[in-house]
C-alpha cells in the first residue's frame, strides 16, 4: 500500500540541540493525523522539514512512494505539501484574493493581471471551504480566524494533497473552532491528508484518526485514536500521570494588595470591582471578547479606563502608562509573546535584566556585568529555564521557556502584583505545570496574582477564586468550592448572572 507520507529514520540537529532522533512514521492518504508533544519535542521541526524550510540531516521521506528532499518551500509546495504556521504568512497590505493567489496570479496574455479572474478564483476556493469572505478586504482588517481561512484557501489553491496545521486553534474562539472543524471535514472529503499539531487533547479525540506522540525529539508512540485515551497520551508526552499535576497548597492570604472599584471602559468592560489579596491567585475567566484581556491591560496602563478606581494597598493610584504600573509594583505578562514581550533577537540574559537594568549600574552609568549575570543565574535556577546559556538568543528557546523568561523579567521588578494574560498559551504540558508551581511559590511569597485565561482547566486547577466576565460585566464570583467547568461556563456565556452588588 502506498502511504501519503512515509518518514524513515529522520534525524535533525541544530547547534547544541538534537531536535529529532530516528523518527519513523507513516500516514495514510486521507488520514487526519495528530502530532502531539511538549514544546521542544520536535513537532515543529518535523513539520518544517516536511514543509521545505530546512532539510533533514539523515533519513528518508517518501511522498506517495516517491523519495523527496526539499531545498526550498517552493519545492515543497510544488510537491503538494502546504504548511499553515501559527504565525501566518500573509501580507497585511494586500487583499484576500491577492494573498491567496500571489504566487500564481492569473494573467491575460502579455502578462497583464486579470483582476476579475483573481476575484473569481478566490470566491470559488472560499466556496469549497464553505466560507464567505470578501476577496477585496485587506488582510490587516481580518480577525485571526478569518486570516486562518485565507491560509487554508491558499493551501487549497496549490492543490496540495498534504496540509499541515501547526496549532490552528491556539487563538480561536469556540465558535471559530467549530468552523475550523467543518473546514477540516471538507478537506478530508476531498481526500486531503492532514497533519495536525496541537496541545489540546480534546481536539485529538474530536478530529484525528491516529495520533503520534513525540518526546525530546524521539517518537514515543503512534496510536489509533479510537483505541486510546487522554491519560495514555499525556503519559506518553511527559512520562508522568495526568493526575499527578497541579497539586498545591493554597498560600496564606493576607492584606488586600489590588482593588478595582467600578472600573469601566466603554465598549469593553463595565463596573468591574474585585479585590486580590497578597498570597492569592485570582482567576479572570470568560470567553474571547468578554473584556477580560482589556481589563488586565487597563490595570497595567496599556489601556485607559473611562471611569472607576484602581487601588494598590488601599491607596488610589493613577495608571496611565506601563511605567506607572511598574512604579506601583505591578508587573504584566502578556499573551502575545512576540508582540508584547520577547525581545527575540536579544539573548536570555538581556531579556531577563532589561526592565531593571537601571539598578545594575555602576556609579558612572555602566552596567555591572557581574550583577547582570547573577540576576540571570538566579532566575534561570528559580524558574528552571532550559537554555544553552546566557548568550542564547531568546527566539531559539521553546515557547514554554520563553514564557519563563518573561515571567522572570516580571519578577525581577520585585512586583507585588502580577497580572497574567494567557500565560501558558502555546506552552506544553510539562512546562505548564512548572509554571503553575512557580506561580504558587510566588503566591506564598506574598505576591497577589491575577490570572486571566481562557484555558478552563488552568483556571480551575491553579486559582483560589475566580471572577467570570461576560460582555464586559462580572457575571459570577466563584470560590474554590464552587469552581467547576459547568459553573464557569454558565457565567461565561451569560446563562447565569450574579445579582448586582
Amino acid at each position: 500500500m502506498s502511504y501519503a507520507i512515509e518518514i524513515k529514520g529522520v534525524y535533525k540537529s541544530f547547534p547544541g540541540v538534537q531536535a529529532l532522533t530516528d523518527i519513523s512514521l507513516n500516514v495514510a492518504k486521507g488520514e487526519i493525523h495528530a502530532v502531539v508533544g511538549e514544546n521542544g519535542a520536535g513537532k515543529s521541526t518535523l513539520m518544517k522539514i516536511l514543509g521545505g524550510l530546512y532539510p533533514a540531516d539523515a533519513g528518508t521521506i517518501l511522498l506517495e512512494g516517491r523519495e523527496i528532499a526539499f531545498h526550498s518551500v517552493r519545492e515543497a509546495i510544488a510537491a503538494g505539501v502546504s504548511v499553515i504556521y501559527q504565525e501566518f504568512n500573509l501580507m497585511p497590505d494586500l487583499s484576500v484574493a491577492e494573498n491567496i493567489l500571489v504566487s500564481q496570479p492569473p494573467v491575460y496574455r502579455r502578462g497583464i493581471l486579470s483582476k476579475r479572474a483573481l476575484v473569481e478564483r478566490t470566491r470559488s476556493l472560499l466556496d469549497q471551504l464553505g466560507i464567505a469572505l470578501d476577496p477585496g478586504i485587506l488582510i490587516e482588517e481580518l480577525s485571526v480566524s478569518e486570516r486562518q481561512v485565507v491560509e487554508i484557501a491558499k493551501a487549497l489553491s496549490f492543490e496540495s494533497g498534504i496540509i499541515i496545521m501547526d496549532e490552528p486553534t491556539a487563538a480561536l474562539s469556540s465558535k471559530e473552532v467549530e468552523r475550523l472543524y467543518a473546514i477540516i471535514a471538507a478537506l478530508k472529503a476531498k481526500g486531503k491528508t492532514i497533519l495536525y499539531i496541537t496541545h489540546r487533547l480534546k481536539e485529538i479525540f474530536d478530529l484525528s484518526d491516529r495520533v503520534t506522540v513525540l518526546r525530546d525529539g524521539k517518537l514515543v508512540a503512534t496510536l489509533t485514536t479510537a483505541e486510546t485515551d487522554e491519560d495514555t497520551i499525556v503519559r506518553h508526552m511527559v512520562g508522568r500521570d495526568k493526575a499527578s499535576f497541579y497539586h498545591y497548597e493554597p498560600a496564606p492570604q493576607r492584606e488586600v494588595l489590588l482593588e478595582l472599584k467600578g472600573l469601566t471602559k466603554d465598549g469593553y468592560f463595565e463596573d468591574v470591582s474585585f479585590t486580590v489579596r497578597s498570597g492569592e491567585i485570582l482567576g479572570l475567566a470568560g470567553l474571547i471578547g468578554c473584556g477580560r484581556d482589556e481589563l488586565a491591560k487597563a490595570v497595567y496602563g496599556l489601556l485607559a479606563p473611562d471611569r472607576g478606581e484602581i487601588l494598590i494597598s488601599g491607596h488610589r493610584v493613577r495608571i496611565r502608562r506601563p511605567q506607572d504600573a511598574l512604579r506601583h509594583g505591578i508587573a504584566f505578562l502578556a499573551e502575545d509573546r512576540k508582540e508584547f514581550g520577547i525581545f527575540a533577537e536579544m539573548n536570555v540574559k538581556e531579556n531577563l535584566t532589561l526592565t531593571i537594568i537601571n539598578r545594575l549600574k555602576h556609579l558612572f552609568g555602566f552596567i555591572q556585568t557581574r550583577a547582570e549575570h547573577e540576576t540571570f543565574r538566579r532566575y534561570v535556577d528559580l524558574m528552571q529555564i532550559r537554555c544553552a546559556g546566557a548568550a542564547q538568543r531568546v527566539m531559539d528557546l521553546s515557547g514554554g521557556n520563553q514564557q519563563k523568561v518573561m515571567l522572570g523579567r516580571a519578577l525581577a521588578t520585585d512586583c507585588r502584583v502580577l497580572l497574567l494574560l494567557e500565560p501558558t498559551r502555546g506552552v506544553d504540558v510539562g512546562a505548564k505545570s512548572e509554571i503553575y508551581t512557580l506561580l504558587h511559590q510566588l503566591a506564598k511569597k506574598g505576591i497577589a496574582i491575577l490570572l486571566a485565561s481562557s484555558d478552563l482547566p488552568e483556571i480551575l486547577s491553579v486559582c483560589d477564586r475566580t471572577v467570570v466576565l461576560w460582555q464586559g460585566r462580572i457575571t459570577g464570583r466563584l470560590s474554590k468550592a464552587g469552581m467547576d467547568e459547568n459553573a464557569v461556563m454558565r457565567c461565561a456565556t451569560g446563562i447565569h448572572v450574579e445579582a448586582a452588588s
Partner: protein
Amino acid sequence: MKIWERYGIFFLFLVILGAFALMIPRIVSPNNLLNILVQSSIVSIAAAGMTLAITSGGFDLSVGAIYALVSCVLGKVIPVVGLTLGVFTALMVSMICGVFNGLIITKLRVQTFVATLATMIIFRGVAFIYTGGRDVELYGLPAIKVFTTGRFLGLPVPLLMTLIVFALVYFLYHHTPLGLHIRAIGSNEPAAVTSGIRVDRIKIAVFVFTAITACFSGLIGTAQLLTGNGRLGTDLALQAIAAVILGGTSLAGGRGRLLGTLVASILLATIGNGLNLLGVSAAYQDLSTGIILIVALAVEGLRQILGRRESFSAKAVAGIKSQEASDAQ
C-alpha cells in the same frame, strides 16, 4: 487617518499654492504653472522609481550619483556617437548601476541603507575618474536641449517624460504580477519568500527601475545645465524620498501612492518656485527642503503612532465583533 493618506497631499498642495498666490498672483499664471511642472520633472521622475523602491520595503540613496554619472557619460559619449546612441549608452550604464545595487543587496545581503550609501560614493567616484575630475561641456551639442526646451505634441518634453514614466509605473504597479509581488515583498518579505516569490530577482528589478528613472532625470538635468560632472544631483535622492513620503506612501512598504508622489513632487517644485518669485535667496530654498523633509518624516511618524493606537483598539473591537458575529451565526 485614511482621509489624510488619500487626500492630504492634495489639500496641502492647494493650501500652499493658495498661500503663494495671495502673495504673488502671477504664480498661478498658466505660463508659470507650466514652468513649475517642468521644473518638477527631474524630481518627479526619480520619485516615481523611488515609489516602487519604497513600496518594496527599500529605497535607493544612489540615484543622485547615477544622475551625475549619466551627465558625464552623455558629455563624453555624445560628441563621439551622436545623441541617440549617447542616450542609449547612458541608459545602459544606469541599468548596470541598478543591477550592481541589486546584487549587493540580494547576494551579499548588505542592508539597503548601507549598500546604496556605498554605491552612491562608488558611482560618483567612477564619474570623477571617467572625467578626470574635470567638468564636461555640452555647449557644443545643442541637440540635447530637446530634453529641456523641446516640445512634442504641444507639451514640453520633460513634462511628457514625467507623464509617460508615471503612466508606465502606474500600469506596472496595478496591473502586472510584478507590481503585485513588489507590494507583497514590501508588506511581508518573509511571507513573500515562503510564498515562492522570487524576491531577489524582483529586488534587482526594482533597483534597475530606480536607476532608469535616475537616468531620465539625468537627461533633463544635463540638458538644462549643459555640463556634466560627478558632483551633480546631490539633493536628488532625498528630494525624491521626501516626495514619496509626503505623497502618502508608507516607509514600511506594501502600499504605494503614485499619484500622491506626483502631487508632492509638484508641491516641492511649487515651493521652490514661489520662494524664487518672492526673491528669497537660494540658501533659504535649501532650508525649506530640509524643513519639508522633517515635516514629511514627522507626519509619517505621527501616522504610525496614531495608526498603532488605532490598531490596538481596533484589534480589541475586532475580537469582540468576530465573537458577536460568530455568536450571531
